[in-house]
């Protein structure tokens, strides 16, 4: 217990008593969650339960009202310097991909390498190609996002995030905007990344993927974490009634 309280582990992501309000509405209620390096955590829950808000607050796209969020021991706040540090270590993949439409896929991957990492153009291009190969679309490098399918776009967005070589990668419903036949190509890439050992926090409704990849499952409801558990246990013997209901509805087909 002495480790907790004010102290926190030097690596990993740790949320302590995090509350987040939008005006009167409380989107996150007393969230406590720690994710160790190398761990894969999947967050599920019905829409509006605060899953996205939770991971967005880790990377400073939302600002928590109270409590603390530590990334590798650094306390997240609105100070641009701190946010820059955090964003060096944490990457994010969005539901809507958010590729830059006016840049080619390679340029999308290279922009932050050139501006933030300040590496040379040749090295940036080489690194972009490395990660585009990792997501199996090196042949799309010089096309614009609009020329790619949804699945390819999301893989390009994953490559863009990987280019920054983050320790942690957050996924915000990465397959929810995709046509069904493209979901698997994205999930396959994510499984490969998980096997490579990157730390992942993933908000998703893909329970098959969760079962395959997650070390731990988090179930959220109305802004609270109702259940955290080992993934095998979570799926076979959920403790909470609401978790059972949720799994029943989502796995009923």
């Amino acid at each position, binding site marked *: 217990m002495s480790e907790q309280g004010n102290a926190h582990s030097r690596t990993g992501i740790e949320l302590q008593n995090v509350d987040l309000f939008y005006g009167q509405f409380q989107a996150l209620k007393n969230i406590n969650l720690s994710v160790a390096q190398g761990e894969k955590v999947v967050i599920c829950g019905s829409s509006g339960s605060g899953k996205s808000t939770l991971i967005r607050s880790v990377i400073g796209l939302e600002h928590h009202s109270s409590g603390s969020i530590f990334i590798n021991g650094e306390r997240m706040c609105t100070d641009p310097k701190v946010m820059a540090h955090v964003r060096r270590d944490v990457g994010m993949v969005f539901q809507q991909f*958010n590729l830059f439409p006016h840049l080619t896929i390679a340029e999308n991957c290279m922009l932050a390498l050139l501006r933030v990492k300040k590496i040379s153009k040749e090295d940036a291009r080489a690194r972009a190609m490395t990660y585009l190969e990792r997501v199996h679309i090196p042949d799309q490098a010089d096309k614009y996002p609009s020329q790619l399918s949804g699945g390819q776009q999301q893989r390009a967005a994953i490559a863009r995030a990987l280019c920054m070589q983050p320790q942690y990668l957050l996924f915000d419903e990465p397959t929810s905007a995709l046509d069904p036949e493209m979901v698997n190509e994205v999930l396959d890439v994510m499984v490969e990344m998980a096997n490579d050992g990157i730390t992942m926090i993933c908000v998703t409704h893909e329970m098959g993927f969760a079962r395959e990849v997650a070390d731990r499952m988090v179930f959220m409801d109305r802004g609270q974490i109702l259940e955290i558990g080992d993934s095998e246990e979570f799926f076979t013997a959920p403790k909470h009634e609401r978790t059972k209901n949720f799994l029943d509805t989502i796995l009923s087909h």
Partner: protein
Amino acid sequence: MDLSILSFGASGWGDEMLVGAGMTFAVAISSYALALLIGVVFAACKLSPIAPLRWFGNFYTTVFRGVPELLIIYLVFFGGEMLLRSVAEGIFGYDGYISLPLFVTGMLCIGLGAGAFCTEVIRGAVLAVPKGQHEASEVLGLSSWEKAYFVIFPQALRIALPGLANVWQVTLKETALISVIGLVEVMRAAKIASGATHQPFTFYMYAAVLFLVITSVTNKGFVRAERWSNKGMER
């Protein structure tokens, strides 16, 4: 109708009209350049998180979109003259006649008016860039300047181009108002020529043709610019 009055040289007014058209184009293009500069700066003001900058931006667009262009011209012309004269007298002790060059006055008036419209076009275009583009840039660690320059501005420019092309056409036509302060652009040239020849219809018609030539040629430029900015965006 005897068209020899449109010929070049001493007997015709063709050269005067063409020089007038050149002046119209020169005033229009320099006003437009000023308007674009104003547009970028004031759009940034109006979108700024800093409240006084927003107030300043709002004040500017409210005044210059709300006051007729002709009134702006009179106010800048006479106000500028008064200001210059009091400065010249107060500081340099000079009390002779002094005024702003007509070209500069014209450019300022038209540019300030068009700038207010550019501000709104650019502001709207920046707001039309999806929020996800901001978030993706921020998450990658781009600074707010880098985000604006490399991600938001190129996309906003694409959205703004049709609106900016519109402002260009309006700017070009509004230069006709400058004739009231005596700058010899195409309208003024037409007036002088029709006064001398008693053939107003011929010269105003010719002026209309000259305006149409300028607008249709420059329009081609905007069409090309739009095509260029749409790269990667085919729908």
